[in-house]
């Protein structure tokens, strides 16, 4: 299991567009990928779940990746967050 933290810098937070991109990116990997902001947790492969987080700019997001391809997945996601969010 790999965990990392990312603070959302995008002004709109995780709105529909990045949520869609995130789901698309996360779905490439077999690992379970979850996001946690405060008390709320979301499955990164489910669009409603991710949008339901209503992540805003400045929110500290804890990302947990767990599974056989967790190291590739977490690397890809770290750069995804950096570029898109």
């Amino acid at each position, binding site marked *: 299991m790999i965990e990392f933290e990312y603070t959302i*810098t995008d*002004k*709109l*937070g995780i*709105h*529909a*567009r990045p*949520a*869609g*991109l995130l*789901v*698309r990116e996360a779905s490439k990997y077999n690992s379970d990928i979850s996001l946690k902001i405060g008390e709320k947790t979301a499955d990164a492969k*489910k*669009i*409603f*779940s991710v*949008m*339901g987080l*209503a992540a*805003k700019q400045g929110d500290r997001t804890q990302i947990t990746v767990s599974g056989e391809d967790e190291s590739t997945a977490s690397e890809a996601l770290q750069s995804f967050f950096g570029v898109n969010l």
Partner: protein
Amino acid sequence: MQGKGVSSGIAIGTIKYCAQTTRTVEKRQVTDFPAEIVRFESARALAAAQLGELAVSTAQKLGKENSLLFEIHQMMLEDTDYRESVTQIIQGQQVCAEYAVQETAGQFKEMFASMDDEYMKERAADVQDVSRRVIALLTGIGEESLLGDKPVILAAEDFSPSETAQFDRDKVLALLTSTGSGNSHTAIFARTMGIPAVIGVGGALTPDCDGLFAVLDGETGTVVLNPDEVTLAEYRKKAAEQRQREELLLAYRGKKGVSRSGKEINIYANIGSPEDVPAVLKNDAEGVGLFRSEFLYLEQSDFPGEDTQYNAYKAVLESMVGKRVVIRTLDIGADKQADYFGLAHEENPALGLRAVRICLTRPDIFKTQLRALCRASVHGKLAIMIPMITSVNEVRQVKSILKDVQDELDVAGIRYSDSIELGIMVETPAAAIISDLLAEEVDFFSIGTNDLTQYTLAIDRQNHAIEPFCDTHHDAILRLIATVVRNAHAKGLWVGICGELAGDLSLMKFYLDVGVDELSVAPPLVLGLRKAVCDSE
């Protein structure tokens, strides 16, 4: 009826009113629920596949940016929470699939609607849109085909993205809605596709309008139902003129604006946000002569951050691929107010704390913008333009702040272009009169005729009572323009005009005679202006 014209053009034809397909489905009990689940799954899979195709065709027609929405819709239908909810309702309540989908849609809509975020609240419409597609497949009613054989003016309360994307340009004369804003999907699609559109006409538009004959003006926002012969003739003439003009002008794409005697004037376009760039490219402007950066400030509740600005500037510079983009720095004040600036009330706002005066009073705000501009400069050909200059000293202060910003970027190891042009807007009589001195300091001038006229003639341009006194061709204005051009050319600077006067075809001879290098106008006027240059001696 009167609404907001969001996409210009005249349409004359029959209105087809598309009743909102919020038909409620019957709650039918089923005994064989496994079969019902299979029914749901196959309809859902088909709907998702349709959305996938829609995404592909939209990407081809309108670019990838516009197709992502349908991919998101597809993801919604593939979402396991959504699917499980439908299946559980079918199983638990032993009801038909269409009812279960409607119930599920309701729950997810509720989730979005209860979110503490205006943007997310609106996503309820997306859930509705995708669920409606599945229900239509299940009930076999099919999405009522919006279009018959004859082209029509399509009317509705508002259109969903999946509806607009399916419109066949040849079958839609215009779009007309009772709700919606300038930023609604309907407005954006209409502009992208070049379909005339009037939105927000309110309660005047009812399902009873279906089948009525009407004329619609996408520029003024006026819609006339059952027009009389006179009105009809008037709009027919307007439409014919418009069509003729457009066809004629297409020939001027890819051409240069060169007069018969060989004088060249570059025709640029004025824009207010990155969203206007498609229109600039469509009309083949040779550059952006004025990108008003105000939209970044006016549509906000707080100062826009450096990254937000950087992204907007970068988007425009990249889409203009190497063509010059003149970005005007902050021009808040006077008639353009933003509350969070906390500006005090002024007796004479037009003569008050505005534009560069704010920037020099509060350099922190200015620095953020300059930093974003410098960072974006590596993505294209950037020219920075400072508004409301009245003295050489102001220009020197601006240059010193710009130098500070660039030094900071150097220290941080952040790249910026070394060929950024710096220019000023000549819009005060003072700047025009000392343009010989100002020319020593900058790379170009752009004459802002709106303010120059107001300040020179002492005429408030927002006061209609004094309109008769406002002679936009006043010799004082023309002499100032000639002086500015002469002084600029003496120092090797180029000069443009970016106010309303730039589009005044009756002044073309004057512009060519004094040697104006560039005229910048609204995108739809570009080709007409280029034609005027080519037709001149």
